[in-house]
């Protein structure tokens, strides 16, 4: 029975390693490879941490199993060795993890700066926000500036509005301003690996560069109320021309006055 426990603790690191290697092939992994430039860096950090954690887990479990195996096979009359109070051991297990943590925090600094620090945003994104994305229970309200103008913090005459669909240019670093009308929400685009909380009272600039045109899911990743699960929208990445055409169409639609295009000069009051 004592040996059982040693085998038990040796069994789990094997399972963990198997899961690490088998997961991608079984579709237990990310929804897709990263589709934004920052996504590659974020995945890099993820894998780095995964490797450190996996090695630590395998190492500690192997040691634990070894100690138990020794205990199980040792003759019952031999004396135990008490490690309690050993300064040497304590120093080792404080310093080693401390180094690991410092290493991780230093390594991620660059990525964090790329994501968060305005002065490090790509020039293209720094030019101005494409749109304002306002989260509210339970939808995403989008405001674009009137084509040809800059986005302002307060709504301006001519601003264009839409809901649950954000059009952005592909292959161009793009900034949006994130805010919330009520509680905390989080802007989460899984395939882009973009995740940012929306905090009441703050306007949070957020940038990403989507690599290929296409449609990407936008979800809320902050439990924001009973309708949280519904808070789903779509990000449409298109060519820059596609986006400006879209905005032109949106502008025309928003100025719709319900009078059908009449043949020149004619009053268009159809019956």
């Amino acid at each position, binding site marked *: 029975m004592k040996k059982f426990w040693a085998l038990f603790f040796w069994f789990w690191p094997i399972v963990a390693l198997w899961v690490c290697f088998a997961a991608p092939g079984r579709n237990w992994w990310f929804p897709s490879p990263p589709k934004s430039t920052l996504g590659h860096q974020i995945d890099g950090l993820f894998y780095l941490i995964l490797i450190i954690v996996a090695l630590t887990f395998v190492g500690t479990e192997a040691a634990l199993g070894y100690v138990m195996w020794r205990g199980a096979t040792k003759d019952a009359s031999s004396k135990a060795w008490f490690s309690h109070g050993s300064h040497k051991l304590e120093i080792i297990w404080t310093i080693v993890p401390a180094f690991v943590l410092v290493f991780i925090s230093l390594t991620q600094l660059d990525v964090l700066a790329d994501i968060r*620090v*305005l*002065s490090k945003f790509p020039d293209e994104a*720094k*030019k*101005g*926000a494409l749109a*304002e994305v306002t989260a509210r*229970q*339970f*939808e995403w*309200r989008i405001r674009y500036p009137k084509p040809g103008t*800059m*986005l*302002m*913090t*307060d*709504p*301006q*005459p001519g601003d264009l*509005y839409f*809901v*649950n*669909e954000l059009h952005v240019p592909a292959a161009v670093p793009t*900034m949006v*301003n994130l805010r919330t009308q009520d509680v905390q929400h989080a802007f989460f685009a899984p395939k882009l690996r973009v995740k940012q909380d929306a905090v009441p009272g703050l*306007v949070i*600039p957020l940038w990403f560069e989507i690599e290929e045109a296409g449609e990407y899911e936008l979800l809320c990743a902050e439990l924001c109320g*009973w*309708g949280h699960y*519904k808070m*789903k*929208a*779509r990000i449409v990445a298109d060519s820059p021309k596609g986006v400006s055409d879209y905005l032109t169409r949106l502008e025309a*639609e*928003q*100025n*719709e*006055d*319900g*009078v*059908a295009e009449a043949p020149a000069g004619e*009053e*268009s*009051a*159809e*019956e």
Partner: protein
Amino acid sequence: MSKALRLRSLVLTSALALSAGCSDFDSAFVYSERTTNLMPEAQDGFEDAPGVKRLVDDKFGNPQQLKAWLKLPVDFGGSSATVGEIVADAGGAKVKLVAVEGVTLPESAKSLQFVSGAAAGQSVGITAWDAKTGEATLASLPEAAPVAGDACSVDGGEVLKQGRVLYMRHCSHCHGSSGDGNGPTAQYLNPRPRDYRNGVFKFTSTNDLSKVSRDDITRVLKYGIPGTYMPSFLLMEDSEIHAIVEYVRFLSIRGEYELKLVAELTGDYSVKALESRQEKRSEIVDELKKFLKEDMPGAATGAGDELAEQWTAANTEEARIIPSVPRVPDTEESRRKGRELYLSKTLNCADCHGIDGAGNGPQTMAFEDKAHPITGVKYSEPGLHDAWGNLNQPRNLQTGIFRGGRRPIDLFCRIHAGIKGSAMPSFKNTAHEDIWHIVNYVLSIQFESEPGSAGVAAAATPAPAAGAE
């Protein structure tokens, strides 16, 4: 639907949908309080003279077993056909169907509903289907066997059934399974979710006296109602939106039909009316029985016809509001005119919306001379009320949030037709050009530095992009 199918109804059992794993709800349509305020005999009727409840159920069924009253302008789904010949064989029955003129039979088919003949109202599963020849192998032949020439519908009611499943999943927790606006989350919301049962919708593109159009409901579904809890369902497939829109129409018409039937009875046979009647109860019951037997069937048919006509008419061009002049250019001059009209004695928008548009005009502080539509009790709180008996605050126009949409045509319709069911009246007699001036003014209120400054753009602060951090 072909003429042969009119005036008949067909039962859509949900057996198929249920066996496909959609049994996540088990619900009933609840009757209006106006129905339950009738004397019990009027609600339940007599064996040979149905009361309100049975009359409604006969035409609409319940969520598990919906009925399609084919007279109504609701797309229940299905392709109309007639039975060509019947080939009975050992393993079931084979029928050959002939599509009604102008209809093409679908590529795949799950069920067949008989609309006329001995088997009318019955639904059978289709086990094998050949769209080219119209040959359908049926799971079983109805006991009262159909004969050649009977009208039927392939996959009849599929749209309505899909609508019900989607509605139960996405809408019923707010709007209630019967569309009474009383789902479990409703009590936490202001404004309350729409109660569809009086057939009144606020944000329509139709004239003040017309019903809502399909396009209007579709718009509300896609874009939501900003400033309220009605969310946007933009990500739904068009076919799903279509199915839900038809289901909402179905629920609305059901509710209205019920109200129309109750209206026939409420004067003489409500619990309240009984209190003031001198006759013996048995005499009243006899009188009621006679009424239900002789007059009610005609009234019910009339109510159905009227509803069919109104809900059809709402989708026609005649019902739509089309401004006779295009939008007047949005100049300072036009906004000033708009503001003058806004404040004028004749239109007096300010009486409700306030001089500066903040939604706090004198009428919001006055007691209304109106009673709650169901309880009949005068309101004890000051302010305006809507057709559902809820407090109805005039919109604060300074927020720039327009629930019915912010396109100029949206606001034109709001002013032209009013907001149906709400306290906001129709201004249809106002010249269209003047309405455009008002629209221009209303759209500028948000940007006014002070009331009447004709919308000089608010001091603009650039978004934090450039400056912050």
